């Protein structure tokens, strides 16, 4: 059970423009109660699936304005790790801290801080993209009124005529775009994305990268489980490799 333990990797974005921008944005977020100058940590986190050990003693800190790329081969527990960070899966050992508090104590208060786009799209085949997005954004407490939803769908490159089709008839990539469009509505500080680039074409990948970049420079935090490199300046990125 050998484990790669990246102990608290701290990233200080070197770009001066970024610093200025993110400090300002963070201040605004902070004042609006959306984010505090704090972080998201896991402490000695261990997980298993069934009786199979996936990873152990993972301690990592995600600071505002940084992206944590979770990499590892298939079956190394990336999805489990992400679900654990959401609070969907409880770790065998260790704790997950948000602003220094255990997320198990925070419960719904913590859920209100994150947007999770999982391996499954979480959209209904029978509903149109607009309906899907409206309902899920309203339920999650994101902006869902008026033109926000169509605008978000256009931002991921879904043209107006597609908005009114049942999602069932869309392609895999288009469905993925609908799921990811939630990120254009989300004002949550923490985004947890499981293979967001899977089945996306180059254009959509660019849109998403830009969106992630914008979120980071607003002082947001992103955790991405991914196989591919993300075109985001390495200053913003730290990597966590899960190994058995």
């Amino acid at each position, binding site marked *: 059970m050998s484990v790669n333990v990246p102990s608290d990797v701290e990233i200080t974005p070197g770009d001066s423009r970024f610093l200025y921008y993110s400090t300002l944005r963070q201040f605004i977020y902070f004042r609006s109660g959306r984010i505090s100058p704090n972080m998201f940590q896991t402490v000695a986190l261990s997980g*298993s699936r*069934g009786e199979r050990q996936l990873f152990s003693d993972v301690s990592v800190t995600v600071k505002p304005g940084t992206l944590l790329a979770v990499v590892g081969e298939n079956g190394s527990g990336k999805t489990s790790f992400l679900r654990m960070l959401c609070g969907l899966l409880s770790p065998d*050992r260790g704790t997950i801290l948000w602003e220094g508090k255990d997320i198990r104590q925070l419960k719904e208060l913590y859920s209100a801080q994150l947007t999770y786009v999982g391996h499954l799209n979480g959209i209904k085949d029978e509903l149109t993209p607009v309906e899907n997005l409206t309902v899920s954004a309203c339920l999650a407490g994101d902006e869902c009124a008026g033109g926000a939803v169509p605008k978000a769908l256009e931002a991921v490159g879904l043209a107006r005529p597609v908005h009114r089709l049942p999602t069932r008839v869309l392609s895999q990539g288009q469905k993925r775009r609908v799921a990811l469009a939630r990120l254009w509505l989300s004002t949550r500080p923490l985004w947890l994305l499981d293979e967001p680039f899977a089945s996306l074409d180059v254009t959509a990948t660019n849109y998403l990268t830009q969106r992630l970049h914008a979120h980071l420079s607003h002082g947001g935090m992103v955790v991405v489980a991914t196989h591919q490199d993300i075109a985001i300046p390495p200053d913003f990125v730290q990597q966590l490799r899960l190994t058995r």
Partner: protein
Amino acid sequence: MSNTGINWFKYSSPQAFHLLAGRMIPWFSVVSIGLILIGLYIGFFVAPTDATQGDAYRIIFVHVPAAWMSMFLYVIMAIWAGIGLGLNARPSFMMAQAIAPTGAMFTFLALFTGSMWGKPTWGAWWVWDARLTSELILLFQYIGIILLRSSIDDLRRADRASAVLALVGVVNVPIIYFSVKWWNTLHQGASVSITAAPTMAGTMVTAMLVMMFGFWMYSIAVTLARVRCVIADRERLPSWGKQASMADVAEAR
């Protein structure tokens, strides 16, 4: 085996418990056999023949303790399940798992001996009496819990899901009892009643109580033995898991 990162030592040590249970089982077995033998002796040779029911009443020496244990074990199982859910403690889930089959066995026994008693006394193998009916439903619940556990592969989920079901069931048991009782009295009146038991001789009560304690000790012994099996079974699993993960690695390369 000892060093495979099994993470269930964190709350208590099942291995120590495994040993302890192994030491306790003989004692409980001996006491149980002794009590049951004494109970049978009193029941068959000391207790007099009942004036109204003849010797058929002697069935209660096994029927009543079995019925008692069936309900008692359900409550104990639910308590272990509740502790397991509350504290996230694996050993208590194992206890709940170990109790269920014995409880189901006693429930079946209570039903079987009940109908054996009912035929000569009431003239029918089965009567939709409140106690019988709720006992039958108790059996369904035991079976449901065992089936639910066996159809979930993931141990952690199996533990917790069957614990939830056990707790829901424990709320349901008194409700069922009273509902059936009221239904019964509303439908057919009190033509048949087992609550009006004949005043029992002291020796009869003694025999019944001794038998009950005997069954109780038996249940403890059997549950401990089964918990040992459960621990042994689960202990083997991580090694399978390890092999499986090795296979995965080989496949990935």
